[in-house]
């Protein structure tokens, strides 16, 4: 039994590796992502400035040698601020993606594979959460905290509204895989539900799970930035969204401090395109239709 | 073309272009079709019979390519080579002189369009300027012959059972009375009672219209029941052609014998023999007779030279060096 699981782990990893084999879009996307990951997780340790706290440097200095991206009206170096912002945003995205995808996939697999009463219950639950527009509720929640909401609380609520999407998709995939005879023969051979799910079903879904994960990171960072832009995120933390908020608040655009607003907007655009490219290529490799198996 | 032939296939070679190389799905095939008969093409999966059918019909889409040969058809007195004709001109023949019934009837009809509109599409395609009611009348007549009620016309495909859908496909294929009807596995996924009904329908139709039906199937039982002549294929080659009765009574090619013996027979409780081994890869086919590795009667000659298709008895051709006597 454990050998089977080990072998299936190896299969899963192998699928992962074969996905990364050469493709221009993927390479571009991955390259950009890696750059941002380095900026967000390696560089902050080297920052000569603190992540929070204003008036650390001269204000409103355009990009120059000493401050490669300029400084803000609140007296922070933009480049190092960006590294902290990237870190927070990326962490937020990845936490939401991990929890949301994990819960969603587990729920979807159980619902799709078990069927019956459990399926009905879980499906209705996820349908309801999909149908309720999450953003107004998020705004309400964040507003109640008067802009001092903790970033992890935000992440938790994001996860709450995120898992149903993965669950719904996973469930329909599980249903169609269940129809395939080789799954039934696996169950006839006495492996049991968990073994079947992890040994036979999961390897087929790995590309999709990966694509979904990347996508969720994107969505989560975007949602936080959206909340921040209207001023309801955790405004004291540095995130990509709060950078935009403060830039708008200080009228950066119209006072000619273009660097302050351009940097977070530009980074978001590039990062999102990169993430999207990755998820697109990964999901293109993923064909659950008749041509593959 | 002589009076008793409406289609002649000469030295037909066709292959699929794949990443690993060229797969010769149809390798040097020769035969002819007569008017007013039901011909069955038999063989295992992957022997090239479906590919052959598509080529005869004129539907050659990449990665399939015809390398050489001729498919000569008699159209209103003229002899046309389907291989060398333009796509547009071939499409003009479709559904008028020849028609095609695909393998599975489950998903071949557009789910969002009513059946009668799908029939009208066919008439539109043929550029026949018939009024809608005339079309409807014609179609109803046709449906009647096939035992389908009028309500079928105003229904959608998902409202019909598998058997009814197959009959609709038969109706579409035969409504303009084509001279040749190609059908690929007409009874897949249908239960045995419905199967029988479909076969009876086909037989009845053919008797009425006196056209030529070409049925591709691996089901030897079906061949036995309704075909007049049979073409046995193996690994892209024709191994035996003859009248069905003769073939079943006294098969001459070892492969044919094994095919027939794998059929279950009522009352015979002996163990069914399955043919050992599997067909060769068509990427790099072996030198001699393709059946050599699995043939119980093979000799050295069979391994080295390819047996040509010869007329061994009247109207009975085989390609074999050691035919059964």
């Amino acid at each position: 039994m454990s050998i089977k699981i080990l072998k299936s782990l190896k299969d899963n990893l192998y699928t992962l590796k074969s996905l990364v084999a050469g493709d221009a879009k993927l390479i571009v996307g991955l390259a950009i992502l890696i750059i941002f990951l380095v900026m967000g997780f390696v560089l902050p340790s080297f920052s000569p400035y603190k992540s929070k706290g204003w008036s650390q440097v001269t204000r409103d200095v355009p990009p120059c040698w000493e401050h490669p991206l300029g400084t803000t009206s609140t007296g922070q170096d933009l480049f190092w601020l960006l590294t902290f912002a990237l870190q927070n945003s990326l962490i937020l995205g990845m936490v939401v993606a991990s929890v949301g995808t994990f819960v969603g996939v587990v729920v979807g697999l159980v619902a799709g594979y078990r069927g019956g009463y459990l399926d009905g219950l879980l499906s209705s639950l996820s349908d309801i959460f999909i149908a309720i527009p999450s953003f107004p509720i998020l705004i309400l929640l964040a507003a109640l905290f008067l802009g001092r909401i903790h970033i992890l609380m935000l992440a938790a609520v994001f996860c709450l509204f995120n898992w149903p999407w993965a669950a719904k998709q996973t469930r329909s995939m599980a249903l169609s895989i269940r129809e395939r005879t080789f799954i039934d023969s696996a169950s006839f051979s006495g492996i049991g539900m968990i073994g079947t799910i992890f040994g036979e079903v999961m390897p087929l879904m790995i590309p999709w799970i990966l694509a979904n994960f990347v996508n969720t990171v994107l969505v989560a960072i975007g949602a936080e930035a959206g909340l921040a832009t209207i001023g309801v995120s955790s405004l004291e933390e540095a995130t990509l969204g709060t950078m935009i908020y403060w830039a708008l608040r200080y009228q950066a655009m119209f006072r000619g401090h273009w660097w302050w607003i351009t940097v977070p907007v530009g980074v978001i655009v590039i990062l999102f395109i990169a993430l999207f490219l990755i998820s697109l290529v990964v999901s293109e490799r993923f064909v659950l239709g008749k041509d593959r198996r | 073309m002589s009076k008793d032939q409406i289609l002649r296939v000469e030295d037909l070679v066709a292959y699929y272009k794949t990443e690993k190389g060229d797969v010769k799905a149809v390798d040097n095939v020769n035969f002819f079709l007569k008017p007013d008969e039901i011909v069955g093409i038999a063989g295992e999966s992957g022997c090239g019979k479906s590919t052959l059918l598509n080529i005869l019909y004129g539907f050659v889409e990449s990665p399939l390519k015809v390398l050489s040969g001729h498919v000569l058809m008699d159209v209103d007195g003229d002899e046309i080579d389907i291989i060398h004709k333009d796509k547009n001109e071939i499409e003009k023949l479709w559904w008028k002189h020849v028609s095609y019934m695909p393998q599975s009837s489950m998903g071949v009809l557009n789910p969002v369009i009513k059946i009668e509109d799908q029939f009208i599409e066919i008439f539109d395609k043929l550029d026949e300027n018939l009024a809608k009611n005339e079309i409807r009348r014609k179609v109803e007549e046709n449906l009647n012959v096939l035992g389908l009620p009028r309500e079928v016309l105003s229904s959608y495909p998902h409202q019909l059972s598998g058997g009814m859908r197959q009959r609709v496909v038969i109706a579409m294929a035969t409504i303009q009375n084509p001279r040749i009807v190609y059908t690929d596995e007409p009874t897949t996924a249908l239960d045995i009672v419905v199967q029988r009904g479909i076969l009876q329908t086909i037989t009845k139709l053919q008797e009425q219209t006196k056209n030529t039906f070409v049925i591709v199937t691996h089901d030897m039982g079906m061949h036995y029941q309704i075909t007049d002549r049979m073409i046995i294929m193996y690994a892209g080659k024709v191994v035996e052609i003859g009248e069905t009765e003769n073939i079943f009574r006294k098969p001459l090619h070892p492969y044919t014998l094994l095919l027939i013996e794998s059929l279950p027979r009522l009352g015979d409780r002996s163990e069914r023999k399955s043919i050992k081994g599997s067909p060769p890869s068509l990427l790099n086919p072996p030198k001699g007779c393709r059946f050599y590795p699995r043939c119980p009667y093979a000799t050295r000659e069979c391994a080295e030279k390819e047996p040509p298709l010869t007329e061994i008895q009247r109207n009975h051709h085989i390609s074999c060096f050691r035919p059964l006597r």
Partner: protein
Amino acid sequence: MRPIVKYVITRMTSYFITIFIGITICFLMPRFVPLDPVTIMLSRIKSVARINPEAYQAMRETFLEIFGLKGTLQEQYFNFIRRAIIGDFGISLAAYPSKVNFLIAIALPWTIGLLATVSFIAWIFGNIIGLLAVYYKDKKISSALQWLSIAVYPIPYYIIALILIYVFCFWLRLFPLMGGLPIGFKLSLDFRSVLTIIYYSFLPGLSIFVVSLGWWMLSMRALSINLSKEDFVRFAKMKGLRGRVILIRYIFRNALLPQVTSLAMGLGTIFSGSLVTESLFSYPGIGQLFYLAISENDVNLTMGVVTLSIIAVSTSALVIDLIYPLIDPRIRYGGR
């Protein structure tokens, strides 16, 4: 029971359940948050004036009543539901003494007008262009379009809005920054009014339009490619039907079905995205109202707007779902 009746009943049931649960969440949230709006309000007042204890208590009672916080949890809930059904959300604090309903009634047409027009146009154009991109898939413009939609689709609406603001308002100075109407403009039923509205709504609309368009193009393209591998499309080709017929009757008509469903499911996302976009442009819609409510801590207004958002999004999704059987005969008439 006829299948379509079953479908309608199922759909409407989940509609009501969704709204009910959504509103309940709205109700519960403020009550489980550590901050108490009444205390905050009062402390604000206390910081600018001196109040004696009786006045303080009286004000506290009033606020509790206004915010619907009086009584036990069940009583509050019951009150809340009752008021939600009637549609009375009380008086707004930020725009005192206007009623919340009044504010919403002015703002709603702007948002609906913007969203409905833009979403619909983007959906139609996106589907058509996506289809053509598949038909002409060998021409350069098709892959150019594909790359364009890949570049645009992942970007949130408000980011595009910011970019558009920068380019068109600041740099090129072609469009006004404020959405809706210029200050002091008198609205009347004439062509000039219509043009002005379009001019001022153009940028907010464009932000949403561009991103939505990208999504519909990409998804239509993917759907069409998948569909062209289907058995019935292959059979249609083998019948020799004209390319245009196959494209429209076989591929497009079948691709539209999931696209309609996507539209229904995506309304929530489009709405959310537009909220931020609206506030960036000070567009006089629900988004702006939201912003006002939040910055002024106007509990009633916030509740009203959130409840309304939930109802609005669910209702539009419901409408689309009810239209769906009209185009999918498999739902209209059941199968055997």
